């Protein structure tokens, strides 16, 4: 098994075919043997330098990449905006070019501006992984979500995914649409009208229908959940001015919160995903995230294996057969 296209970076899921995604899963599957073994360290990326450049707060993504790199014996350097030359007014592009010159073999970039990893990628030679850019994309999260579903349910083709919450500001949602559709799932958005990417869903123009996976939109939670196999609740992004687009949290939770009560609208087999971090009590009740219906903890557990796979594919010498 090999990738359909040689991967020089990972900016978004639209670079990957179904076959590519399954290849990454196979890779992750093999690597989880290491994660579950007695010594969680292999010399696969020894001598390689990974730089995590995070200009936006992140705990789970950054630590997961860091851990993935360290398990593979790479040297991992974390750079965050505060305490970096960003604060001295160094331009973003100078900063990343400096990191390349210092000897990074790969840059993992988190940035608050949509498209920042694209801009970086075309201005440096080394591979770039998009670890979340503004409201645009979060491809590694999507691969983790897909892998989690693949491992716990199996075939993704034909599943109904309901993305619940503020999808217009969500990079997780945008990459999820591409990824789940590529593997044959059907996607439904459920949110207040003000939080819906209408030009990608119910209001897509004729000209663009072929340019995007078909996405159904409804503001009715009952309708949205009635045939769900997967419910992905999104974080309500207060820092992206989400608070301006619905009257108050009370109204939001009454209409859109995933609770024991609203979950009854969904089939019993439906599983819950959340990319984290969660606003417990706003988009999802705390006990649900811990329940057997939830895949949330598995999402976190699978994150390291997926990111290890991507690091090896982009800068390692090994192939699926040789690892």
């Amino acid at each position, binding site marked *: 098994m090999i990738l359909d296209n040689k991967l020089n970076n990972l900016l*978004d899921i639209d670079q990957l075919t179904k076959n590519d995604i399954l290849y990454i899963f196979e890779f992750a599957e093999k690597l989880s043997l290491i994660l579950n073994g007695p010594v969680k360290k292999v010399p696969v990326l020894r001598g390689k330098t990974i730089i995590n450049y995070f200009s936006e707060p992140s705990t789970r993504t950054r630590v997961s990449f860091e851990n993935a790199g360290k398990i593979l014996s790479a040297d991992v350097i974390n750079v965050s905006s505060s305490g970096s030359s960003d604060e001295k007014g160094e*331009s973003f592009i100078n900063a990343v070019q400096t990191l390349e010159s210092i000897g990074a073999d790969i840059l993992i970039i988190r*940035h608050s501006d949509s498209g920042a990893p694209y801009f970086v990628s075309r201005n440096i030679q080394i591979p770039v992984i998009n670890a979340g850019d503004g*409201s645009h994309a979060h491809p590694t999260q999507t691969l983790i979500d897909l892998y989690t579903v693949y491992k716990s349910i199996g075939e993704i083709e034909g599943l109904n995914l309901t993305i619940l919450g503020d999808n217009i500001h969500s*990079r997780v949602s945008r990459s999820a649409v591409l990824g789940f559709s590529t593997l044959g799932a059907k996607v439904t958005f459920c949110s207040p009208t003000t939080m819906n990417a209408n*030009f*990608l869903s119910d209001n897509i123009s004729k000209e663009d229908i072929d340019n995007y996976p078909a996405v159904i939109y409804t503001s009715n939670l009952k309708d949205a959940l009635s045939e769900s196999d997967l419910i992905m609740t999104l974080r309500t992004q207060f820092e992206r001015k989400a608070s301006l687009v619905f009257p108050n949290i009370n109204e939001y939770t009454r209409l859109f919160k995933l609770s024991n009560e609203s979950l009854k609208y969904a089939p019993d087999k439906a599983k819950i995903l959340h990319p984290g971090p969660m606003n417990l009590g706003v988009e999802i009740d705390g006990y649900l995230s811990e329940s057997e219906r939830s895949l949330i903890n598995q999402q976190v557990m699978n994150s390291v294996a997926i990111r290890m796979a991507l690091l090896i594919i982009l800068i390692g010498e090994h192939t699926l057969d040789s690892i």
Partner: protein
Amino acid sequence: MKKIIKNGKVFDGISNKIKQQDILIIDGVIQNIGNIEITGVDIEIIDASNYIVSPGFIDIHSHLREPGYEYKETIATGTRAASKGGFTTICAMPTTIPALDSKDSIDYFKDLCQQRSIIKVYPIGAVTMGREGKEIVEMQSLVDSGVIGFSDDGEPIHDPNIMRMSLEYSRMVSRPIMNHCDDRGINYRGEGVMNDGFLAQRLGCNGIPNAAEASMLSRDIFLTELTGGLYHACHVSASQSVDVLKIAKERGINYSAEVTPHHLTITEDFILGPTDQNRKQISENAYDTFAKVFPPLRTKSDIQALIEGINSDLISIIATDHAPQGYEDKMTTLNQAAFGISNFETTLGSVLQLFHSKDIKLEKLLQCLTSNPAEFLGKKLGKLSKGYPADIVILDLNEEWEVDISDFVSLGKNSPLQGVKFKGKVLQTLVDGEIVYSDKKGHDG
């Protein structure tokens, strides 16, 4: 000093028919036009056989950046770039430091132009002090200093009372208010970076809806009806704006409107990069900051509406909105990058596409670049007729060339048109009878 331009296909800006004629120039002024027998020896002959001879282009909307932003553009480089694009007169927006909001700053600007410009430059005054939208400038004093109009360009006039009062006042000073229409409340509190719609949502970017422009334009149009003021709509970009102008015309409301070469010819797809404009699979070249411009590049249907706007005389002026930017202004993320396209040197090539595609007649395009803006300025410019200054451009409609931003005379290399192939080129530009630019010799001729 005598010159004669022989055998050109002359567009004189009056009859709006192109016919073969000669133009006799004495001491920088057009002395005669028609079939002229040459007598005497002390006369310079310019052979324009097979070429179009037109009044020099007049741009009523540009940014020269000096004083204050000399790293983006200077009066020297900007006017040279303009002359290369066929312009003999340009009007400079007050987006300088200091803003052109007082007699002193305008006198200073005119002094600089006197020393450094190679073409005619007229200043546009700010509507409000510091372009802050709060306090109206001393409009009559600015008119006395030579401004041809008022604009806070880049900063739409949000306060309806300021707009209403400045329109009332414009009747007294007889110069127009030129508004950049964009309702910030509709445009994500001013944080939009590109056209709203599928592509903005696909790229996770804040979009600027057509409604942000058209709603403010509607307000302005009805305030113009209310006040009888002099109003000019800057760079209309949205199809809805053309509809608003149609209503204005039907109601007999006096206004003028301009459109830029980029809004007439290229779409939001240029945000995806100069090539690889695939809306389905986003390439590494996407989020191209050179295509970030305000108002944003729109869609094919908007372009169609703007073309119809020109053909039905709802829009009578093509203006460049030449907005040169420095390297660091554009070498960043789409969100952080400055708005603007360096436009002087590609304007002709861009709009001639519409002639070659038969969307707009050549005569109409030339009117929009010459006699119509001259009428807007109320100056004796923009026509080839006895007694008019010999501001003339000679064009080859068929020469093919490829845009290379490194060849730009402008300091602003920020053009999304890198590598685009054009048909039609400026061969010579004359200001007051003097050749200020020639394709063969550049600016040294």
